[in-house]
C-alpha cells in the first residue's frame, strides 16, 4: 500500500478553485518533488494536505497509510505522522524553542501511548540532533523563531522533523532563503531521515535543492494540475528550459 495517496484532489479558497484534480502516489522510501512557477497551487497543496483552515476541499481523497486524512483535524493528522516544514515558520514570542519541541514530542508520544519524555533524555536527544544540523545548541533557549535568520528558521524546521520522525514529510520551499552551506546541511538532515518507512514530498521552485535531495519522481504543477511527471532528469530539463512549455499546455 502506498504511504501517501492523493487522489483527484480539488480545493478552493474563497470560491476560487486552486487545485483542480491532483493525483500523487508516494511509496515508502521515495522522494517526490513538486515543481512549478509561483501561484500555481504548490503551497495550497501542502496546506490542504496538512489540514489548514480556510480551504474548501470540493472533491478527492488524501490517505495516509490508508487512513482518510480529510476527516481529521490538523493536529490529528500531525499525530498520524504527517509533517509540514513551513515556508515561513512563525514566531512565537516568549515560548522557548525547547518548550515548544518538548510539547510537540510529548503530543506525539501521548498519541502512541508512551509516557512523556524524560527531561535528561530530551536534552541529550536535542543536543545530538542540533549537532547534525550544525546548529548552536543554545538556540533551543531562544524564543521559537523570534529573531532567527532565514537559515536558522529552516534548520529549525528540519530539526523538528528529525525529532518528530514523521511518516510523511512535506517540505514547502525549504530551500528559499538558504545559502549554499545551509542548503547542504539541511539536505543532509533530510537525507539522513530517508528510509523505507518514510516518504517525502519536496515542494520547490528551483532545481537547486534537488541536487542535494535527489528525488525519485518529479512532478510539474501548473494551473492547479500535475501536467507532467518524470524522473530526476525532468528537474534538469525544467532548469534549462523553464516552465513556459507547461504553462502553454495548461492554458
Amino acid at each position: 500500500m502506498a504511504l501517501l495517496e492523493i487522489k483527484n484532489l480539488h480545493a478552493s479558497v474563497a470560491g476560487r478553485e486552486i487545485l483542480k484534480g491532483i493525483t500523487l502516489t508516494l511509496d515508502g522510501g521515495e522522494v517526490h518533488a513538486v515543481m512549478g512557477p509561483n501561484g500555481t497551487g504548490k503551497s495550497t497543496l501542502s496546506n490542504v494536505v496538512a489540514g489548514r483552515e480556510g480551504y474548501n476541499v470540493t472533491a478527492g481523497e488524501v490517505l495516509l497509510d490508508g487512513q482518510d486524512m480529510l476527516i481529521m483535524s490538523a493536529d490529528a493528522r500531525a499525530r498520524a505522522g504527517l509533517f509540514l516544514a513551513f515556508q515561513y515558520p512563525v514566531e512565537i514570542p516568549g515560548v522557548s524553542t525547547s518548550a515548544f519541541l518538548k510539547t510537540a514530542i510529548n503530543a506525539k508520544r501521548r498519541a502512541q501511548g508512551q509516557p512523556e519524555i524524560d527531561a535528561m533524555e530530551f536534552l541529550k536527544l536535542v543536543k545530538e540532533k542540533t549537532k547534525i544540523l550544525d546548529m548552536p545548541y543554545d538556540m533551543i533557549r531562544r524564543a521559537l523563531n523570534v529573531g532567527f535568520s532565514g537559515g536558522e528558521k529552516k534548520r529549525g524546521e528540519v530539526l523538528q522533523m528529525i525529532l518528530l520522525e514523521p511518516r510523511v514529510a512535506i517540505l514547502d520551499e525549504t530551500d528559499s532563503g538558504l545559502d549554499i552551506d545551509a542548503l547542504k546541511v539541511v539536505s543532509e538532515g533530510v537525507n539522513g531521515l530517508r528510509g523505507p518507512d518514510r516518504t517525502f514530498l519536496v515542494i520547490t521552485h528551483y532545481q537547486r535543492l534537488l541536487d542535494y535531495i535527489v528525488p525519485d519522481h518529479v512532478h510539474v504543477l501548473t494551473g492547479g494540475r500535475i501536467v507532467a511527471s518524470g524522473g530526476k532528469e525532468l528537474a534538469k530539463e525544467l532548469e534549462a528550459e523553464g516552465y513556459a512549455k507547461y504553462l502553454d499546455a495548461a492554458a
Partner: protein
Amino acid sequence: MAATKETAAAVRDVEQYKYGFVTDIESDKAPKGLSEDTIRFISAKKNEPEWMTEWRLKAYRYWTDLGDEEPTWAKVRYPKIDYQDSYYYSAPKIQPKLESLDDVDPKLLETYKKLGIPLIEQEMLAGVAVDAVFDSVSVATTYKKKLEELGVIFCPISEAIQKRPELVKKYLGSVVPYSDNFFATLNSAVFTDGSFVYIPKGLRCPMELSTYFRINEQNTGQFERTLIIADEGSYVSYLEGCTAPQRDENQLHAAVVELIALDDAEIKYSTVQNWYPGDADGKGGIYNFVTKRGACRGRNSKIMWTQVETGSAITWKYPSCILQGDGSVGEFYSVAITNNYQQADTGTKMIHIGRNTRSKIISKGISAGHADNTYRGLVRIASKADAARNYTQCDSLLIGSTCGAHTVPYIENRNPSAQTEHEATTSKISEEQLFYCLQRGMTQEEAVSLIVNGFCKEVLQTLPMEFAVEAQKLVAISLEGSVG
C-alpha cells in the same frame, strides 16, 4: 422591628462582653444590614479595644456620608448592590467533613488534578477529614515556631490587635486610610479578619509566608484585611491565594491590603486569584473590589507586586506603590485573564515622591469569549522626585472576536528631570501560530496554553517557583474552550 430588637439585645450583651465577659454570645450572626450596631457587634465579637471600635465607626460614618455612591469610573457593569441585604458577621462555619475524596464533586477534583495539586492538599481544599499520615496542621505549627524564634509575627490580624496593639495602631490605615475609597471604607468598618505580618529589623525571612498555611484555619471572609510591615533592612515574600478554584457564598469581596517597607526593606507580594468567575453565561461569580497599596516609606526600600488574576466575575484592583523614600523601587507584574463574561479593570499606581525613585510596570491582559479586560494605571511624579524613572509595558492579547481589551494609562509628570516610558501592544493569537502548533501535533488547547504562557512569561517568572508551575497550568485551564 424584630431585627432591631435583636440588635439591641446583642449590643447589651456586647456591653457586658467588653468588661471581661469572655465566653460565648449566643447569637452567631450579626443582624442583617449595616448600622452602627452591627459595627459594634462585630468589634465586640472580636473583643477589640475601644480605639479599634472607634476607628471602625469613623469609617462607617464616613461610608454613610458617601451615600450609595460607588465608584463608577471603572469599565465594569454589575447590578446595584444592596448593602443592607447582607450579613456582615457570622461565626466561622465548621464545614461538614467528608469521609473521602469519593464524596467530592468530580468536576472540582478534575481541576485539582489538572493543576497537579498533591492528593493530601486536594483533601484539605475539598474539606475532607485529613488523617494523621501527614498532618498539615503540625507542619504549619512547626513553621510558626521557627518564625517566632526569628521574631517574625505572622498571625490573624484579630490576634495582632490583641497582642501587638501598638503596631496595629501605628500602621493600620496608614497606607489605605479609612476614607480612601468606597470599598476600602466599607472594609475598614466591617473587616472580619486577615493576616498580620511583622518582619523585624535586618531579618531576611527564610521562608515564603503564605496564607496557605492557614488554609484550614477559619475562613477570613469577604472583608479581609492584611497588614504587612517590613522593618529596616528586612525582606519578606508573601503569597496570597491559591490556584485551586475557590467558591464562596458571598458574592461581594472587598479586601484591603497595606504594605509598609521601611529603610532598605523589601516586600514581595504575590497573588494568584482564582475565585469563582460565574458560569459560561456569566451567571454568579464573585465581585472582587480590592484595595492594595504599599508604602515604600524608607530609603532604598522596595515593593514588588505580582498578580495572576484568573477568577472572579468582576475584578477591580490596582495594587499600588507610594515611593516616598529616596531611591525606593516599586514594581508591578500582572497577568489578568478574562474569559466568557468576566470583566477585569486592573492596573497599578506608582506615586513617585522621593528622589531617584524607580518603578516598573509589566501588565499582560488576556481576553477571550465575551470578556472585557482593561488596564488602568497611573504614574505620578511629584515635583520633588528628581531623576525618577518609570517604565511601563502593557500588552493585550485577544482570543476570538467578541472580547475587548482596553488600556487607560495616565502619566502625570511634575519634574523635568524624571523619565517615563510607556509601551503598549495589542495582538491576537494568529491563525498562523495556531496552525503551526497544531501541525506539530498539539491540540487546540495545548497550543493556546503554550502561546498564552509565552505571552505571560515575563510576569510568571517573577512568581516563586512552586507557584509559577501551578500558575502556568491555571492559565491553560482558564482559557479552556475559548478557541474552536
